[in-house]
């Protein structure tokens, strides 16, 4: 974990309201684990004082990139940043995804920026498996060629049917599981909206398969000091708070009190 002044290498919209920001950040880039994130101070946005967390999409040598969606003030203002300009980042932060367990078959499940967050998992996994990407429409499905190029099978679902199969990501997952699941001993790696996490966690529990889920609780400090980002995890018969930024954002799905997640 370090505080680094990164320099923008490339920055452009990629599709819909998603943008790709690539930066030179040798200190942070060198140490990235899949599923970790950086905490970004958006330049020129002084009245919004907090940093914004973004999953590390790619990390190659001295550079890293994030893939972000314009959803509010921070992500709107971030778009003004041009190559050559610099920004303050804090990272790599949090605990990411583990490697796929021996004898298991990796199944990625992603929605929204989750596709970016899982790229390093896909890249670094010695075993290539299957990836389920879901979204509202074609605009929301990211990085399919990149995952395919790494040797993953990608199954796309969209709610409006504009790309891949029509429906929810879990429909495709269920169909696949019924067809091939038993042959495979799946291990789930999930990053997406709360509903998707819960649906995946439920299936993992029912089928008693390991699942790693990345939560996106709002964050303050990003390093474990402010206690903004907490969620309830099991602690024997009771529960305790865990910090998404420190103990997470990736948790063993078994540990989370799903019914309490916001």
């Amino acid at each position, binding site marked *: *974990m370090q505080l680094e002044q990164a320099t923008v290498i490339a920055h452009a919209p990629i599709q819909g309201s998603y943008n790709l920001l690539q930066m030179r950040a040798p200190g942070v880039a060198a140490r990235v684990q899949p599923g970790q994130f950086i905490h970004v*101070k958006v330049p020129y946005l002084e009245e919004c004082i907090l940093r914004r967390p973004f999953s590390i999409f790619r990390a190659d040598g001295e550079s890293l990139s994030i893939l972000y969606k314009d959803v509010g003030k921070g992500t709107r203002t971030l778009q003004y940043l041009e190559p050559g300009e610099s920004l303050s980042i804090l990272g790599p932060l949090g605990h990411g995804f583990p490697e796929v367990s021996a004898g298991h078959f990796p199944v990625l499940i992603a929605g929204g920026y989750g596709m970016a967050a899982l790229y390093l998992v896909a890249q670094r996994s010695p075993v290539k498996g299957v990836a389920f990407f879901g979204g509202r429409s074609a605009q929301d499905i990211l990085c399919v060629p990149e995952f395919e190029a790494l040797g993953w099978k990608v199954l796309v679902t969209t709610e409006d049917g504009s790309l891949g199969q029509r429906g929810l990501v879990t429909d495709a997952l269920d169909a696949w599981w019924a067809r091939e699941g038993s042959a495979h001993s799946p291990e789930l790696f999930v990053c997406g909206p709360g509903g998707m996490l819960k649906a995946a966690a439920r299936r993992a529990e029912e089928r008693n398969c390991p699942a790693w889920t990345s939560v996106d*609780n709002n964050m*303050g400090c990003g390093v*474990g*000091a*402010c206690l*903004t980002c907490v969620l309830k995890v099991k602690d024997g018969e009771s529960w305790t708070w865990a910090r998404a930024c420190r103990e997470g954002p990736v948790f063993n799905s078994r540990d989370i009190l799903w019914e309490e997640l916001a």
Partner: protein
Amino acid sequence: MKPDLSTNIGGIRMKNPVMTASGTFGYGPEYADLVDINQLGAIVVKGICLHPTKGNELPRTTEVASGLLNAIGLPGPGVDGFVREYMPFLRTYDTPVVVNIWGKTIEEYAEVAARFDSVPGIAGLEVNVSCPNIKEGSAVFGTDIKMFERVVKAIRSATRLPLIPKLAPNVSDIAEYARCAEACGADAISLINSFPSLAVNLDTRRPILANKTGGLSGPAIKPIALRLVWLAAQAVEIPVVAMGGISCARDALEFLLVGASAVAVGTASFVYPDTALRVAAGIGDFLEKEGIASLSDWVGSIKA
């Protein structure tokens, strides 16, 4: 020549006047990878009470114009948990450890203070009487002068440690509270705590924070804090520790100018974890450039 930045806050000797503000720097380990704790004037840890506590439900914070609203609700490991889990780590540093304490009753305050009295490695106690979520009956300790007096007196008799009541900002006459603390035997005072505030969500028609109200911190409150610190510093002889929106050396120098003997960096640490160190270095640079030999020559030197 390098100016002398050392300061003494009611018996706590600090190499420079910059502390962390309680609740914004965890218990130390959270920032230890990023910040050399040995270079801090003092480390003030998150509020501790007698027993482990869970704090509030979510959301606990929300961003507002030039500020942060928080109602974390004082989760923590309790006295024993803190001493067991964090003191061994904190004792490895050559930096005074100030424990911020709170209680639900006057007896609890006094008991927490008493328990820390015998813990090695603790340099002083800061008393949070101004947390918006703690009340005794209907009276809030920090905004009722009689309750304030009782709680400070009770703690004073329970501990020999340097005692720093932390004043609530939402009072009409801050000098009254400052003088009362001094009269009750406090060794210093600190201010301001975050300012009671509210944010609401138009879509849900509810307060944004689970706790409904929260405390405002960050640059937005700096001008309010600066006035209160100025008034408090004029009212007492004991040292004043100032906080409220400090995010750079110039901010800190302003608080020192109006009479604070030390400052604490709060919300700004969330943004730039090294803020406290940069503030300390910047104070040194400024005094040197101005030819001021010692911090104490700057403290309270406002012409007004």
